[in-house]
């Protein structure tokens, strides 16, 4: 039973990374390295929780004004909007003003995590109101007490988004154009593709998806509004997962599960394997996803297959050749 619980937990925490990395892959396919993902995930969570905070009655026994499904949908929409606004801000800076992508992204993370803390700290209600909301998110497993409870509707949503993204990127004209923009914007431009529009839309959609990861972690996996301090670390893991999954959303599904497993294995070592470890070691074990990412980087660099490299113009601002 413990093993199943472990695997389900790994799957669930992995979905947090999956949202972040799917969003980041879409952005990077347009040639934009958005290091603002940790901040964007935080803002996404904060916007969703702000809506929940307004919807849920203060009295834990009182019925909410709206049906549970509508509350969930509204929270998701708020999260999407929050992520999208962050993506729009990033796009304006990095696409229109052509500021340095690394600097812009890091600034978004610093700004985003700060604002996230501010929003969560200012939400007036105590954690009790969220407790009921978390069960809404855990539909259809909201009545179980096993680890299955983490695998609510948003887990399926995350996997579905990753699969759909994969299909769009590889099988459709929009995906072909998007990849062309990320590989060689000059070529795409000459072929009549609106490079700026693609960069904007990809970044905004990607950021909105990443924002969902933050909300999922707070409301579904952790089930506590106090978990917001951890989001930044999970955001960086999502960025690492992009590299680990070689810029492919479908590999990201498997990768997220592996990352999830490695991330929580420290906590399960005593119960699963009977290993007694101290807190420091347990935290050290949490760095394993980064270690495997480095190993993947080393292997792909040695094999040097063109298909496994990042988009060719990643991180490079596009100037149309003018004379």
């Amino acid at each position: 039973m413990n093993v199943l619980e472990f695997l389900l937990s790994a799957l669930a925490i992995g979905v947090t990374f999956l949202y972040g990395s799917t969003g980041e892959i879409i952005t990077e396919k347009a040639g934009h390295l958005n290091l603002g993902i940790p901040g964007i995930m935080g803002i996404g969570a904060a916007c969703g929780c702000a809506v929940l905070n307004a919807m849920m009655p203060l009295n834990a026994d009182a019925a909410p004004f709206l049906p549970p499904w509508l509350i969930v949908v509204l929270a998701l929409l708020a999260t999407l909007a929050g992520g999208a606004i962050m993506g729009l801000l990033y796009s304006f800076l990095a696409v229109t003003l052509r500021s340095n992508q690394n600097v812009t992204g890091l600034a978004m993370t610093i700004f985003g995590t700060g604002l996230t803390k501010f929003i969560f700290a200012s939400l007036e209600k105590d954690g009790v109101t969220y407790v009921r909301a978390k069960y809404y998110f855990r539909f259809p497993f909201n009545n179980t007490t096993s680890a299955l409870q983490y695998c609510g509707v948003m887990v399926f949503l995350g996997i579905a988004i990753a699969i759909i993204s994969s299909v769009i990127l590889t099988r459709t004209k929009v995906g072909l154009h998007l990849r062309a923009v990320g590989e060689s914007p000059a070529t795409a431009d000459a072929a009549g593709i609106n490079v700026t529009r693609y960069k904007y839309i990809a970044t905004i959609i990607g950021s909105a998806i990443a924002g969902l990861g933050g909300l999922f972690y707070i409301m579904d996996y952790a089930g506590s509004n106090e978990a917001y301090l951890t989001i930044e670390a999970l955001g960086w893991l999502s960025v690492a997962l992009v590299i680990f999954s070689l810029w492919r959303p479908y590999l990201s599904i498997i990768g997220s599960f592996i990352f999830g497993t490695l991330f929580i294995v420290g906590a399960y070592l005593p119960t699963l394997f009977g290993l007694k470890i101290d807190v420091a070691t347990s935290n050290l074990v949490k760095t394993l996803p980064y270690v495997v990412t480095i190993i993947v980087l080393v292997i792909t660099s040695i094999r040097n297959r063109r298909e496994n490299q990042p988009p060719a113009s990643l991180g490079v601002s596009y100037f149309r050749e003018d004379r």
Partner: protein
Amino acid sequence: MEQKEARNIPLALELKGITKTFGTIKANYNVDLELKHGEILALLGENGSGKTTLMNMVAGIYYPDEGQIFVDGEEVVIRSPKDAFDHKIGMIHQHFKLVDLFSAAENVVLGVKDGKKFNISEVNERVQKIADRYGFIIDPKEKVHEMSVSQKQTVEILKVLYRGADILILDEPTAVLTPQETAKLFAVLRKMKEDGKSIIIITHKLHEVLSISDRVAVLRKGEYIGTVNTSESTESSLTEMMVGKKITLNIDRSEPHDVVERLSVSGLSGLNAEGLKVLDNVSFTAYGGEILGIAGIAGSGQRELLEAIAGIYSPESGEILYNDPKGGAQVNLRKKTPLQIRELGVRLSFVPEDRLGMGLVGSMDITDNIMLRSYRSGFVLLNRSDPKKLAEEIVNDLEVATPHLNTPVRRLSGGNVQKVLVGREIASAPSLLMAAYPVRGLDINSSYAIYNLLNEQKERGVAVILVGEDLDVLLALCDRILVINSGRVTGILDGRTATKEEVGFLMTKSDRVENTDPEGGAA
């Protein structure tokens, strides 16, 4: 052909009075051009004669300042590549615009808005069909990064055909091809012509002009010289049209004195990144106290030759021997890095053609750029005062127009950037000075300032090697002119007695005619 040229059939493309200026430079001035249906027109001219600029206006890359463009007898306005495609005009540029990671078919279909549902296997079929029709050998599923240069060019041509172009413009398509590949390309072009397509091919290779085209239009220094039927022309008649009459320039040229052997290059051969031969058994000697000019069509190996001497490019074989003017010792520079060369005491200065790419750091100021040559001196802290003094000297002596010594050099105009670069290179008191296109993009006064600097160096006994593109300048300034053609030295002429036609002929003549024979390899 005959029926198609009957009366009342409008021209496929007609240009009237096209003028285009970039800053103060007139790239095209009052150019007329006529392209008939189903013909291959060669557009001939030296480097910088405005061939590509003219065609870019037809393809929608640039917009003409003046003049009219007619397609099928109707005046059209072409503001973007998309407009050009709408008028069934497609251009194959010299630098391919392809996504390396995509397959041939994916590149072909990129950006096409035909309203059809995207299905890659259908696209593959359609691309294959076009390829079969014209005799291209290509696998639509192959990734571009796995392709040879000639296959990439095929993809570019297919891209244009897929969009339904009837007028095809090819910008120096053979520059990157082997003779065998050129023959194949020409076979394909002939098939397209039979199919009713009208083709303009930009080139400066005379034998190709004679082998493929129906008519030849010639541009010289941005102006239209005329159009002749290929069957009525010869290599020498075309050369004359291309280079024109000699213009006398007012450049001083002193007799060389105290001439000593400084650099002796023998049997230098090397490949470029694509594996094609760029230097083929190049041998020559440069003497201190003279200016050796290097003439040739762009990309004939000039760059690699200078870079080989400077230690940046590594040739496959050959010797580069340098005679030290002081000790008289001889050192071999081949396979040495620039730093090793300097440590050997070789006083070599190099003014590369890519000024802000290889010569100077654009975002640094004049002083810092000068320190790039002296950064190894000084202990712990860099010595900044001497370079600063030198910067002031250069700014004053060469009349560099800069707001301040601390202004980043990329903010200076082209002429001033060049003065800084030449000034720095000369300040190190070289015994060998190499300059590639030092007056490119400069106005007359700046150009003369550079010529004077080169002459001064010659007077001091420096061996000057000057790669140039303006034959009038080379003939007026240089003591000897080496002509390089497809990586081979086709002649070393006396600058005082050589004629423009002689140089032009050596630059463009071919000894590969047999390979582009219509029948050879057309299958």
